[in-house]
């Protein structure tokens, strides 16, 4: 029997970026907010201290900061005719557990999506015709536009202290920035980071090839910075331990370095860790949430009543909770009916390793220290002759040179023996890698539902993921990879190694933690789980925030858009929902 706890105004499920933003904004509006986090509390001191955090084995290889599949995982199959099997250890993606969520361990690659990314279907149909989109491709518009989100992108950038060079301020194109970006009202809060040698070589080669390279916007501070809440950050030292690590230097934007020093001290905010939410409770009508059930470390169950329930967990955990709670109609790929679990998407990446004669010191880096070109992202180029939808950026990142996972070896290098050893000695200091980061569209047969066989430690069915790369994505990725190889050639390397993404999607090795969809936003309750304010169509006092809202995935890292959506939803709750609780959009 669950212990019933005193009610709160708002309960947040999961405590990463989105919960921190909503917690801060809703407590500012006077609400009593409780955040429930399944993992531990952790902070810059002592958990990310530089005396311990720069440990590749512990954090990057043994996955210390992430969720433990023993407690929570999903099952996976490529297609509906296969039997899904559990992801037994982390591989292709690494969801976080613990305070700060993935905001602790990300690289800090912070982008805005393009204006046309929010109009994927209507824009594509308008420019290329309805027949251009394959029949099984279930892409749709977001129900929100770039112009509407612009102030919220801006707010997230000034929360984080993004280092970068604006390309388009109020319609005026600025040299050295990304000329393809949507119109922004002002530049970034900080100038770009210092350049690594690799990014300088890429910049030169890309310019020679006729492109317009620019410094990637970075949530790594190029200078000391005081943010919108008065929280102080310090200058990045290029230690090269961002992704998979917490920052010990207050230089990578995370909930800990930007919001928590203010939020955790508020009287109307509480964070409860080691609290795994297993269900959202509904009243007898099924149209109103009454709170959530969670389980603590000792297996004790609690009922936490709340007027407003906001799901702010990792994308697919939000979807899992909706399915376990019976909120929204589960998606059925056979009929195409239902919305929860629909339009799961991912990203498709590839790389070109470039072996140089010069020493490039890869270990001097930062997670978002990169130089990119955007000529082939979104609809920045004519897709007519290419006959695929989507695109991506091409970038040279100098994220670090951690030796176990971040070494690159020429093609045909032996996997072991003296040949391997010699290749390591010859190449480690003299290699850069050009990455392509491509969109993945949504499809009728790419979705999430509940697994019929495998269960988690609480006895609940695991989420089942059915996903594969489609021909459209393979062709798009090949197109990007060929362009990347062209830039690599212009760097006049002694050798190159093209790592083309081929064949089926696989749950190993690591690719990216940019999983999207499953609780998508939109304008039609028959094809979206939440409305344009991320409010459940079916249970209006439930909001679902995160990349699960993306109707398909764009060619950029998602965090900037996730942050903007969190501010967008917070504003809708403050300015509309609090005045008149109920559906913000009539179905």
């Amino acid at each position, binding site marked *: 029997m669950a212990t019933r706890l005193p009610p709160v105004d708002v309960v947040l499920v999961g405590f990463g970026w989105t919960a921190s933003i909503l917690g801060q904004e809703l407590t500012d509006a006077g609400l009593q907010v409780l955040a429930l986090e399944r993992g531990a*509390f*952790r902070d810059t001191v002592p*958990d990310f201290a*530089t005396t*311990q955090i*720069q*440990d*590749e*084995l*512990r954090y990057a*290889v*043994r996955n*210390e900061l992430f969720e*433990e*599949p*023993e*407690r929570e995982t999903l099952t*996976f199959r*490529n297609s509906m005719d296969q039997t899904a*099997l*559990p*992801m*037994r*250890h982390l591989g292709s993606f690494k969801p976080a557990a*613990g305070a700060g969520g993935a905001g602790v361990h990300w690289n800090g690659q912070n982008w805005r999506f393009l204006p046309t990314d929010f109009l994927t279907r209507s824009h594509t149909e308008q420019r290329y015709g309805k027949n251009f989109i394959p029949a099984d491709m279930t892409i749709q518009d977001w129900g929100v536009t770039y112009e509407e989100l612009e102030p919220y992108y801006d707010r997230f950038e000034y929360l984080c202290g993004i280092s970068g060079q604006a390309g388009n301020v109020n319609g005026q194109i600025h040299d050295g920035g990304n000329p393809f970006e949507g119109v922004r009202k002002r530049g970034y809060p900080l100038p770009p980071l*210092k350049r*690594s*040698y690799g990014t300088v070589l890429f910049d030169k080669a890309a310019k020679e090839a006729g492109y317009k390279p620019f410094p990637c916007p970075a949530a790594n501070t190029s200078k000391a910075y005081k943010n919108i809440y008065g929280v102080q950050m310090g200058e990045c*030292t*290029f*230690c*090269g331990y961002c992704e998979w690590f917490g920052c010990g230097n207050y230089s990578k934007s995370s909930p800990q370095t930007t919001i928590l020093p203010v939020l955790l001290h508020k009287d109307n905010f509480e964070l409860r860790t080691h609290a795994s939410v297993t269900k959202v409770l509904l009243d007898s009508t099924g149209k109103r949430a009454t709170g959530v059930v969670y389980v603590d*470390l*000792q*297996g004790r169950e609690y009922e936490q009543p709340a007027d407003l329930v906001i799901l702010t967990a990792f994308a697919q955990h939000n979807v899992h909770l909706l399915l376990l709670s019976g909120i929204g109609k589960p998606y059925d790929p056979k009929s195409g009916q239902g919305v929860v679990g629909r339009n799961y998407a991912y990203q498709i990446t590839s790389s070109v390793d470039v072996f140089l004669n*010069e*020493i490039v*010191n890869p*270990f*001097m880096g930062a997670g978002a220290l990169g130089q990119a070109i955007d000529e082939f992202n979104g609809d920045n180029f004519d897709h007519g002759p290419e006959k695929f939808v989507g695109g991506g950026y091409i970038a040279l990142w100098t994220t670090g*040179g951690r*030796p*176990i996972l971040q*070494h690159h070896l020429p093609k045909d290098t032996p*996997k*072991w*023996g*003296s040949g391997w*050893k*010699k290749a*390591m*000695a010859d190449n*480690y*200091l003299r290699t850069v890698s050009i990455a392509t980061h491509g969109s993945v569209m949504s499809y009728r047969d790419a979705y999430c539902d509940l697994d019929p066989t495998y*269960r988690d*430690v*609480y*006895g609940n069915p695991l989420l089942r993921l059915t996903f594969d790369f489609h021909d459209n994505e393979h062709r798009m990725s090949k197109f990007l990879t060929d362009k990347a190889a062209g830039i690599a050639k212009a760097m006049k390397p002694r050798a190159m190694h093209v790592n083309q993404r081929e064949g089926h999607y*696989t749950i*190993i090795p690591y690719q990216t933690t940019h999983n999207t969809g499953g609780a998508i936003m939109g304008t039609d309750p028959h094809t979206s789980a939440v409305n344009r304010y991320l409010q459940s169509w079916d249970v209006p006092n439930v909001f679902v925030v995160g990349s699960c809202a993306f109707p398909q995935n764009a060619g950029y890292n998602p965090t900037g858009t996730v942050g903007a959506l969190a501010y967008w939803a917070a504003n809708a709750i403050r300015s509309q929902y609090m005045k008149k609780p109920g559906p913000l959009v009539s179905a």
Partner: protein
Amino acid sequence: MRFIASRRRLLKAALIPSAASVMPLRFVPNASAEPVSAPGQFSYFTPVEFTWVDAAVSRLIPNDDLGPGAKEAGVATFIDRQLSGPYGRAETWYMQGPWKEGTKEQGYQLKLTPAQLYRTAIADIDAWCSKNGKRPFAELDAATQDKMLHDLEKGEIKLARAPAKDFFQMLVQNTVEGFLADPMYGGNREFIGWKLIGFPGPRYNYIAEIDDYGKRYAMPTVGLLGRDGTRVKES
């Protein structure tokens, strides 16, 4: 039953206030000054198993004209310690049945933990040697060992219980880890791995050097435990 079993672990974890404070328990004091194969020094391996792994890693990253290899770097000690800890026990992995052979895209589906896979495979490989009229693996000459390792890698040696290819892949991965991880885990002794490739260790601040393009970084190698990479020896 499943829930009860997990609950026991949760109860244990509940006694500890935060994940961060658990972590030091995962470290094992470094003993790099001690002889590699002294009996009774192992955390998980039997002496026979340790000798087997020491022989295998000596071929995977050999001592050659470029300098010392995995044996000298203490990689067998590293693997021994890893297998006795949470990694060896697959402590964070989802290890509930039913167990099925999946597609290669579905990843690891063995019921064996890494520690169990080593134990099973090492015994299987020596049994295979015996059946084929050979001396145990560790006693073979380098060329024969190399041939056997290649055959295991390709799955051309069929073992009685352990899947050879999966084991070999794990062995290579753990060998590279031990050669290139911080020395406090028992491998990468005297920074043998890091010095080979030119990695200076967790140096923390490169603001002054990052735009000094094309120059080799001059400062000496460090580890998380300091200049010699090992813990100060207790008397």
